[in-house]
């Protein structure tokens, strides 16, 4: 647990499994989220993020395992009692009701008085800049406005826990950027616990105070963005976190157990690996940890295979055969480079990650 206080976590899932027919959506999934945290659930589509959120909300009951909110077991508790609200990827606005009635719906269900409803609806609408849209039906609103209605409807009854299921996926790039800032602001303002499911690593890294990386219905690794970046537990996490993606080279452990033989030559690690000499491994090195050096101090040199200009930086791929190394260079440097040029490269050996070729787990 990242939070240092003694409060029980806002959400904790303990060895939860769920199958739909023969498809096992979640397999022994466990993680916990601290009170008031902005937590990102990251993984590709159909990895089980939505099922996980639905389980926390109570829409899905796990086959096995335990769900606890604020320390209390709610595995089989009714939805209503949980104080959880959720923003769906599809927004799921009530299409037959006006924006006003969409906002009012949760309050009406909670038997809030009509004067109070009116006050809170107008408050929420003005907070989300929807005051002029209250009498409209959702399908007459823009995507961004629909998104804000969905958000407002979830916030209006002041939930302790807010679940966001890929809330920005259906928006265009500009709106997505604005909404990210908006969500951070709302989190600061209300201080509720937010669990944010996203398939976008940038969203996860920029928004999550902690991130759980999911794969095949289970959490592979949980940690802060830095932890995931610096110490990925396996090749899956290493490849998912960080852009451009980490370089993974096939390698063999040398006789001394302290250096790796690759298609680009041998690299001394300066530390002892938990692997036998001759073991097949992957050597992982982030593009940002490679730099062009003088020919004398270079660890390797390789020809340029591909140049991908991205505006201010260019991704340069080096190599001759299937193995290749990507390196990120500022545009000013990259403009001098031509295809086929041999570049001398220096590797920060402390930043080299080594993964077992058999199971992909990190060797430290």
């Amino acid at each position: 647990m990242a939070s240092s206080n003694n409060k029980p976590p806002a959400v904790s899932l303990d060895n939860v499994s769920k199958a739909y027919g023969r498809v096992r959506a979640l397999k022994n999934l466990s993680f916990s989220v601290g009170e008031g945290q902005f937590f990102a659930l990251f993984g590709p589509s159909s990895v089980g993020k939505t099922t996980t959120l639905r389980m926390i909300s109570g829409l899905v009951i796990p086959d096995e395992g335990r769900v606890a909110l604020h320390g209390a077991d709610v595995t089989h508790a009714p939805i209503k009692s949980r104080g959880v609200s959720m923003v769906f990827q599809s927004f799921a606005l009530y299409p037959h009701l006006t924006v006003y009635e969409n906002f009012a719906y949760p309050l009406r269900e909670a038997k809030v008085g009509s004067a109070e409803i009116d006050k809170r609806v107008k408050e929420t609408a003005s907070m989300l800049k929807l005051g002029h849209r209250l009498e409209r039906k959702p399908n007459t609103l823009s995507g961004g406005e629909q998104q804000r209605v969905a958000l407002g409807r979830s916030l209006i009854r002041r939930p302790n826990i807010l679940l966001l299921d890929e809330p920005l996926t259906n928006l265009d790039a500009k709106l997505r950027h604005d909404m990210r800032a908006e969500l951070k602001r709302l989190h600061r303002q209300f201080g509720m616990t937010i669990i944010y499911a996203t398939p976008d690593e940038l969203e996860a890294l920029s928004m999550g105070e902690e991130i759980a990386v999911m794969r095949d219905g289970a959490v592979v690794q949980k940690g802060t963005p830095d932890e995931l970046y610096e110490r990925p537990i396996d090749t899956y996490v290493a490849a998912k976190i960080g852009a451009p993606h980490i370089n993974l080279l096939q390698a063999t452990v040398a006789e001394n157990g302290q250096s790796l033989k690759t298609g680009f030559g041998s690299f001394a690690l300066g530390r002892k690996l938990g692997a036998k000499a001759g073991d097949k491994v992957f050597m992982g090195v982030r593009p940002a940890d490679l730099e062009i050096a003088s020919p004398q101090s270079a660890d390797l040199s390789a020809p340029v295979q591909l140049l991908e200009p991205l505006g201010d930086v260019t991704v340069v791929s080096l190599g001759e055969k299937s193995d290749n190394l990507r390196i990120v260079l500022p545009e000013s440097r990259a403009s001098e480079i031509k295809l086929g040029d041999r570049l001398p490269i220096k590797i920060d050996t402390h930043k080299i990650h080594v993964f077992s070729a058999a199971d992909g787990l990190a060797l430290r």
Partner: protein
Amino acid sequence: MADTRSIWEKLGFRKASGVGEAGWGHTLFAAIISLIYFLPVLIIILTSFKLQTEALAVPPKLLPTTLFGLIPEQYVFSPTLENFTSVFSRAYVAGGAAESTGFDRFFFNSIFIASTSVLLALVIGTLAAYGFSRYALKGNDTYLFIILTTRMLPAIVVIIPVILMFRISGLSGSYLGIILLYTAFNLPFTIWMMKSFFDELSPDVEDAARLDGSSEIKVFRKICLPQVLAGLAATFVFGLILTWNEFLFALLLTGVDTRTVPVAMNQAVGGGGIGVLWGLLAAIETLFLIPVFLVTFFLQDHLLRGVTFGTVKR
């Protein structure tokens, strides 16, 4: 600049960019088609205002007015309401006193039986359709198919067992019997139709309502039903027309008191040995058209979306 319009556009057709924006070409086309379809109905309505001799006249009497001298006198008839009064009461013997024909009762029967059975089928069918659509139980597809098979046999094939069942159970000639039968007949159509509407709704919306604190019943009543109003309207009208026009079962299973208009109509115009009373028949038909016309008229906004199964957006 060269005229890039297609031949159709030059003729007044244009791509409609929204409802109510068709060009006059489309409008004219639609008007002609509508007229062709509506012509039989128009003839029935006009005939209902004619005397028997005018109804059978050769050349035909076309209109009740000369249209300011446009139409020659020989094609014009003088309208009368006699047919309409004799729908409800007339003398069965020439020169005799007028007697009630019982048609007020038959109209009530038709309205009562059709609306009750269609509404009943709508209530039961909508609940069943929601169940089929939302709860994926084992064998759902089989049940749905079995329900559909009840509509595969022509009525005439099942009529004998139905008559026997009605005899034995004493339902012959009763309101209950014919209403139950029509309800059963409307159910498959209602279930299939409503299921297709429920299938189109986003389940996320219902889950959102559950998270907002709604019980299952409220989710159905406050979230699902309002979204399928168009489907309810379309299903109601289709069922109503089907039931309203039903003849065979009504002929064999209704009694004197529960007789519906289609059956009574047949008996009213055929008897007497003087041939079909066309004016009277047309008058009954005209009156018979009115209820369905009114229902369709008031539900027309929903119908457009309903009959196109939601492919046309509001």
